[in-house]
């Protein structure tokens, strides 16, 4: 396992170096946009990982992204303050996850239906209250990290981004550490696998579920803020464009592991970035709609390949009830 991942790391480095020495400018820009395309998907996948690892299937990621991006954009535009916008997006994400928590933990509703409710609710609210003619004062500025951003290739690819990109990357790694090396993670995973054993060990199952769903909502809000306030700087109806569902596929492809999902997301981002590059340089002449299809086709392909080989948390999708007999 270790040697396998080492081997693939070498392979990736080799491929990148090959292209870098052929054309450093294009390679750097493709790698940079791979990160930009991939990161929101990775962050959205964290929402799914947090929820499912703790036993709640969340297909409402799409709605969470949409709603938080909506709040982030409009409140940011009206207040003319980007920080207020980011905070509103976080609140929006948490509102949606609290709704999911109430529906699934307290009311023990079917989790697929609960997620669908969130998606429909978010789509409805954001298009009903949508108004044209608002604009942000600016988008979140880039922070070039001193020294690090001067490194060749790695500098421009990794260290010349906006604050939410750094926040996202750091939080994904933190989540991985927490999930696999801290008490919180062991307990959360035990709830996702076999909640009654957690209960028997004195862990308060539903309280921890709530905490994790709120954290997941925070990740969703951050993703929405990133999309609306840092990456794109605008908002439209249907703004999230299926990213929440792609994120679910990445979560599965990454085996419910934050780093796995990050890797999968960057793979997706790379595919998108290469396709865009080919378009721009006119190497291939594919109509734009087909390029736009790419992520979805990749999603289907990836799921078809990995389906059946992966094992989701055993208790995901089932509400926990203390036994009564």
């Amino acid at each position: 396992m270790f040697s396998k991942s080492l081997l693939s790391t070498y392979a990736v480095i080799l491929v990148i170096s090959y292209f870098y020495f052929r054309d450093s400018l294009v390679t750097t820009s493709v790698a940079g946009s791979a990160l930009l395309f991939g990161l929101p998907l990775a962050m959205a996948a964290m929402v799914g990982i947090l929820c499912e690892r703790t036993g709640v299937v969340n297909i409402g990621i799409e709605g969470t992204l949409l709603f938080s991006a909506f709040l982030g954009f409009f409140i940011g535009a009206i207040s003319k303050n980007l920080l207020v916008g980011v905070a509103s997006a976080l609140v929006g994400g948490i509102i949606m996850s609290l709704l999911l928590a109430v529906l699934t933990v307290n009311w023990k509703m079917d989790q697929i239906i609960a997620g669908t409710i969130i998606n429909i609710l978010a789509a409805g609210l954001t298009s009903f209250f949508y108004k044209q003619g608002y604009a942000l004062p600016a988008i979140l500025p880039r922070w070039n990290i001193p020294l690090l951003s001067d490194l060749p290739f790695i500098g421009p690819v990794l260290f010349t981004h906006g604050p939410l990109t750094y926040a996202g990357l750091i939080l994904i790694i933190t989540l991985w550490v927490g999930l696999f090396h801290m008490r919180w993670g062991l307990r959360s995973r035990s709830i996702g696998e076999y909640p009654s054993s957690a209960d028997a060990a004195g862990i308060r199952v539903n309280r921890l579920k709530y905490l994790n769903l709120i954290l997941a909502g925070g990740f969703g809000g951050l993703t929405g803020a990133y999309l609306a306030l840092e990456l794109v700087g605008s908002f439209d109806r249907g703004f999230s464009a299926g990213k929440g569902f792609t994120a679910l596929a990445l979560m599965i492809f990454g085996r419910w592991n934050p780093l796995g999902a990050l890797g999968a997301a960057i793979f997706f981002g790379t595919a998108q970035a290469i396709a865009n590059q080919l378009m721009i340089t006119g190497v291939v002449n594919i109509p734009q709609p087909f390029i736009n299809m790419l992520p979805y086709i990749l999603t289907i392909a990836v799921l078809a390949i990995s389906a059946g080989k992966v094992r989701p948390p055993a208790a995901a999708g089932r509400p926990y009830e203390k036994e009564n007999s």
Partner: protein
Amino acid sequence: MKPILEVRNLSKSFGQVIANENISLTVQPGEIVGLLGENGAGKSTLVKAVFGILKPDSGQILVDGEEVPFGDTATVIDRGVGMVHQHFQLVPVMSVTENIFLGDEPRRGLLIDRKGAKEEVLRLSKQFGLEVDPDVPVEDLPVGTQQRVEILKALRKNVRLLILDEPSAVLTPQETDELLEVIKELAKQGVGIILITHKLREVMAVADRVVVLRNGKMVGTTTPHETDESGLAQMMVGRTVILDVKKSPAKPGKPALTVKDLKVRDDRGLLAVQGANFEVREGEILGIAGVEGNGQRELVEAICGMRDRVSGEVLVTGQATKNLNPHAVHAAGIAHVPEDREKHGLVASYSIADNLVLNRFDQSPFASSFVRRLDAVSDNAVELVKKFDVRTPSAENPASSLSGGNKQKVIVARELSQGLKVLVAAQPTRGVDVGSIEFIHKQLISARDNGAAVLLVSAELDEVLSLADRVAVISGGKIVATVDAEGADRNYIGRLMAGLKE
């Protein structure tokens, strides 16, 4: 001495059903208290209330002389109470170490101290003589070892009261004996123990004191010196129980089930049954005795069409059944009481009535063409529930609402209530209370007396010897000997089971 546990006037009801009524109980340090009762008598409810899994309605629970709040597992664990649950509370994908320390993980800074945890597991396992590999995922361990993990988990803190809820229900006789030794050793080290079971032999072997529950009430306290197994059984059931099986001599007829050179692979692809040969005649019971894991499960599944045969033949009254599916095997006249009743015997979420016609729901009188006849299903259910003494308020309740013994009665009722030539009964009384065991044994004998050929597979040698007319010993996937049950030498059979030659 100050009691480690004192329960005062504890009551708990679920809706209309009173599970515990005014129960008082004390346990001293180093004392083994056997908590005995039929399924549904309220034993599990009582200890779950003590452990904080259930909230009692009234009463007091004192650990070490101090009252503990209701429904607060964390506090109870903190005060030194450990519990080994009937259904293991282990996370299958996690390692032994992770399972043992779940909820109380040693830390180094913010991170879990894996190395320290592992060393602690090794130390515990040495101290109590419970050998485990700390790094293996629990799901890869055999059941007996999983239970060791459960016990270690309960012991990880300075445990002074250990509750074991039917610990032997899933164990082989050998594993049970090992467990009883462990329990005695723990008591010697000063741990107070509550042992819940309905196996009288275990209570007689280790308990200092026996508390008997029936229908949620305490019916008495005694010691193994003052009574014997039939005395305990009588207290449990509330009437005289015949532990010895009464049966008339068999009148064997023509061969009904013939197995020839049968070879079967297990799940790992290894040859688990290596050429079995035997026949069961009409009107006799052939018992298969053997240590579990010697091919019994594969043999039964191959006969019943649940597993492919590598080679060999299974004949029912001379007719070959070649790689038929379970439905066709059933149509050929083989009834099957499966070993794993939860998985293969019942659909837990279906009603009792539906479960009683699982094998015939599409046939007359329970269906005509494509339409089910629900009135016939329900009449059948009412009749069978009464005849087989299934304890339930209504046949429309889901099968999951039944206790283990009553689930088994539903399966036996379904399998016996049709014209059958062969009955294959695998571990028919495992995890079943005394009253139901007696009843199921009677049913097996009456099936035999009605001319059925019965193949009985059981891990309990006593059960095989008392029920069967002939005993076949299986070892390493082969039938190594067949003897008459009447006057069979227990030690000789035991040696054969262990794989020793003569």
